[in-house]
């Protein structure tokens, strides 16, 4: 479990310029095996929260506690936290450090000082899990953006984290590739009990997550299931987030008299089922 207790964080130098804190009095809990979509407009504090969870930056007020370890305790516990919280950056080029696909996946386990057979086993596993086997010996620089993003995820998962944080992994890659990546990540969460925190700008990606957290101006605006969050249309719009088109379509039809349609329709399958019941 990760606990974020009343955290305030400000980037250095911003106080003097009168810029509001990046995060202000944020409290939330992430349980094991939960899949969470974290959404918000530019500058809402999403990426800062991700960095706090991974102990890349430390809170100035409040605390972040990962499986009982405070991120600001320093020393040995910092290494444990960094191993259990894996972070995938928005641009895979910021993260990939080696020349070939195999080396990249092995990089983390090697640095954990694992025995050779264990490293090989993890590399083999990740090649299959993220569909990278055809490119195993390819140069990282020859991969497409989507392949690079899968490789970045493989490199982080090879360290067997308990929490996987994806910082807008779908910004750089085409829609259907993004969908496949998210599907793989959610499957892993189910099969291995890894918690996933997926940061995104896209409202249409929320439907398939257990929980949605909406950030606005450094604070948590809404937190709940996708359906419960999408009921707050006006608050979302004030935070610069429109409802997913499919939800809007459902509401327009309701307003035109098909009042038996549910208030919040999340997916195409839900919409089809609801429309079929009208037939």
């Amino acid at each position, binding site marked *: 479990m990760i606990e974020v207790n009343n955290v305030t964080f400000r980037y250095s130098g911003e106080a003097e310029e009168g810029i509001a804190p990046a995060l202000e009095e944020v409290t939330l809990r992430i349980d094991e095996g939960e899949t969470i979509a974290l959404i918000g407009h*530019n500058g809402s504090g999403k990426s800062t929260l991700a960095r706090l969870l991974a102990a890349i930056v430390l809170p100035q007020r409040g605390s972040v506690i990962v499986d009982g370890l405070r991120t600001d305790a320093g020393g040995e516990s910092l290494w444990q936290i960094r191993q259990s919280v894996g972070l995938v950056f928005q641009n895979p080029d910021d993260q990939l450090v080696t020349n070939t696909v195999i080396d990249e996946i092995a990089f983390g386990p090697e640095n954990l000082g694992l025995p050779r057979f264990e490293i090989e086993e993890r590399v083999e596993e990740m090649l299959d899990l993220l569909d990278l086997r055809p490119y195993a010996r390819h140069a990282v620089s020859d991969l497409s953006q989507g392949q690079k993003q899968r490789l970045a995820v493989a490199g982080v998962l090879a360290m067997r984290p308990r929490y996987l944080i994806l910082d807008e992994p779908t*910004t750089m890659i085409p*829609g259907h590739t993004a969908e496949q990546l998210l599907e793989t990540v959610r499957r892993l969460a189910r099969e291995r009990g890894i918690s996933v925190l997926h940061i995104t700008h896209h409202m249409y990606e929320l439907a398939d997550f257990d929980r949605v957290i909406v950030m606005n101006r450094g604070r948590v605006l809404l937190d709940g299931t996708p359906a419960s969050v999408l009921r707050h249309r006006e608050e979302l719009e004030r935070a610069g987030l429109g409802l997913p088109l499919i939800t809007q379509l459902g509401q327009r039809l309701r307003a035109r*008299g098909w009042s038996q349609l549910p208030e919040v329709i999340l997916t*195409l399958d839900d*919409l089809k089922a609801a429309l079929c019941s009208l037939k």
Partner: protein
Amino acid sequence: MLFEVKDVYYTRMRGTPFAVEALKGCSLTIPEGKITAIVGPTQAGKSTLLLTLLGLFQPSRGSVLFRGQDIHQAPFDLEALRLRVGIVFQSPEAQLFEETVGKDVSFGPRRKKLAPAQSRHLVQESLEAVGLPYEEFRTRYIASLSGGQKRRVAIAGVLALEPEAILFDEPTAGLDPQGRQELLALLQRLKTERRLTIVLTSSSLADVAMLADQVIVLHEGRVVLSGSPRTVLAHAEELLALDITLPEITQIALGLRSLWPALRCDVLTLDELEEELVRFLPHAASQETQLSSP
């Protein structure tokens, strides 16, 4: 027609084991003063096509005409062409090389040996055209800008050459939704306010459906579909099979076709989809009561 591409073939890395036939009999036209979107999956030949238009690649067969003249036949002046048609490469922010915004944008005018006052005027106009106020940005360090701002500086650098047309290679790649919207709005403004001809490439129809006058779908070095966005979207199923990302609205329409196979999927807006869908739905209970009431 600004450009005509006639049955062009081009092999990248010809004569090496890595040779790839990037264009295989590609024919198309680029009309003046319009926005043309070249859409296709990765490796379709989109970037190669742009470079071929500028004569940076010479076709192994076929020809490229600029205002009716073959660009590879004497006396055509390729250098003059490149002053009239600008190009913004993919991730252009990576190719800014000066220290400050002002210096970078003035590189072109200075190379053209324009008078300082004229050059300054062009820099100012170009920066303001991309939404970066001159006084505020001229002395800003490139390194202090956001990714989207850097991309706009790169575009201003091309505008400062006063081109008639600009080719953009994947202009929205890697931008967040807000940056994407701003960039697409900028392209629209360049067309309407400056009467520029714009050609852009994308792997997604979502970006260009509301923007382009003409869409050309490229697949494996050939044109497989072309026309207005609506004409092209009518072939949504084929586009999906080609790995082209569709607008969210089209995806919903396509999904609903399993219930109503006659449902049109060449809808561009939520309003259009709503009206189309309503034609297929049974009358709503509340509407029926209205109808039957005297």
